[in-house]
């Protein structure tokens, strides 16, 4: 098989695989409205626990512990703290993904969608996932850059508050539309 034919064959196999993936029943495929329903939880996100995490990971605490306690105990505490940071980072990613999904819900409901905006968001999501994985690996290797993790949380927090307001706005509009539609139905104005 020469190169063009091999490429065509590979492309067809890729299409088959993509088709299988795209058509499989996506249990994780969320209902768009479900996110709207959870909008009220936005302000109770993991970012609110950052002060506690920061305290647990503070360098001063580690120095103090190393000077007073045994090496074994200090190492064990360090390990536990790293676990906490990793769990926190994972939660942060969950928050990001939820917010990212909410942005897609807004787009799916919009009468006009900007291709550039959507492409940019897709790109940002992919970049986030890549960087997140890289940072997670670094954390696993034993680094703990807490101040930067803090600023990361602040961004998510700001975004969540802003989206909370937007979701409430959208919810009110949807409720108003439904109310209007049902009142028209009730008066026999429903058209087939």
């Amino acid at each position: 098989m020469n190169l063009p034919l091999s490429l065509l064959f590979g492309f067809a196999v890729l299409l088959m695989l993509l088709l299988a993936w795209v058509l499989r029943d996506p249990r994780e495929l969320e209902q768009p409205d479900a996110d709207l329903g959870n909008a009220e939880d936005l302000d109770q996100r993991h970012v609110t626990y950052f002060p506690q995490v920061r305290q647990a990971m503070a360098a001063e605490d580690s120095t103090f512990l190393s000077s007073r306690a045994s090496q074994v105990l200090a190492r064990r505490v360090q390990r536990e703290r790293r676990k906490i940071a990793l769990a926190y980072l994972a939660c942060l990613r969950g928050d990001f993904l939820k917010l990212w999904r909410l942005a897609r819900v807004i787009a799916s409901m919009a009468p006009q969608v900007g291709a550039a905006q959507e492409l940019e968001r897709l790109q940002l999501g992919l970049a986030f996932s890549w960087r997140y994985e890289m940072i997670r690996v670094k954390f696993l290797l034993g680094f703990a850059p807490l101040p930067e993790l803090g600023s990361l949380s602040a961004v998510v927090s700001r975004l969540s508050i802003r989206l909370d307001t937007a979701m409430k706005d959208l919810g009110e509009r949807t409720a108003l539309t439904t109310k209007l539609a049902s009142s028209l139905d009730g008066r026999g104005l429903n058209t087939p």
Partner: protein
Amino acid sequence: MGTLPLYILVLWACSALLQLITLILLFAKGSFRKLPFFTVYVALNLCQVAFLVFVYSVWGADSETGKTLAWYSECVTLLAQALATTEILKVTLRPYQGIWGLAWRALAFTSTLVVLIVALATHGAWDKAKWFELNRGYHLTFAAAVIACLLLFRYYAVQVAAAYKMILGGFCLYSCTEILIHTVLQSLGKKWFDAYEPIWQSSTMLSFIVVLFIWVAALWKPLPIEARQAAPPSDSVYQRLSPEINERLRELNEKLLRLWKLEALPQ
């Protein structure tokens, strides 16, 4: 007709029977009102069977005239296939005006790209097998465009009714198998389009029969009733929020990058 092997005639009859069942189901369940182009496509396929029986009876299956007429009839059904698919995509995306706007642009972009790739990959083979290359090029473009749309559906969590998914999946499956069969047979030898024609015919017909079974299953029940379309939120919500969200996401990414770079520095 006598020049076609018996097993191909049997497959042909099976395919015609299944097409007839599909058409009956479309009318019996009232689905033809929702999918008029798909109904026309199935009807055209049945007409094509009758047309080919006539053509091969008059000119024979091996004659140039017979083959050319058969390929012309294929062009008509392929055009109907494209229209039927667009119809299903449009029905699915009716409540999502913005996404539909994005989807047709994705369709146009993907199709153009694939046409260019196909033209580049096969430019030397046109004199030998023009119709085969055109057919494969069409199926490549078609499958890539529909899969791009399905990916878009998944990305935006657009709920697609199982019946529509099965019909679209059937179209794509058929196109993908056509590409694979063409490519595998072509790689077997220089005179592939003459020597392996019966294999090509039987394998493509078999894959189409599988697709017809999928469609019969999809159309067994009436198509889902569309939910009343709620008035979409005003355009300003998206216009206002989308850039802001992107800005925040970008900021978040920059923080992540800084975190990464900070970690990379020696402690």
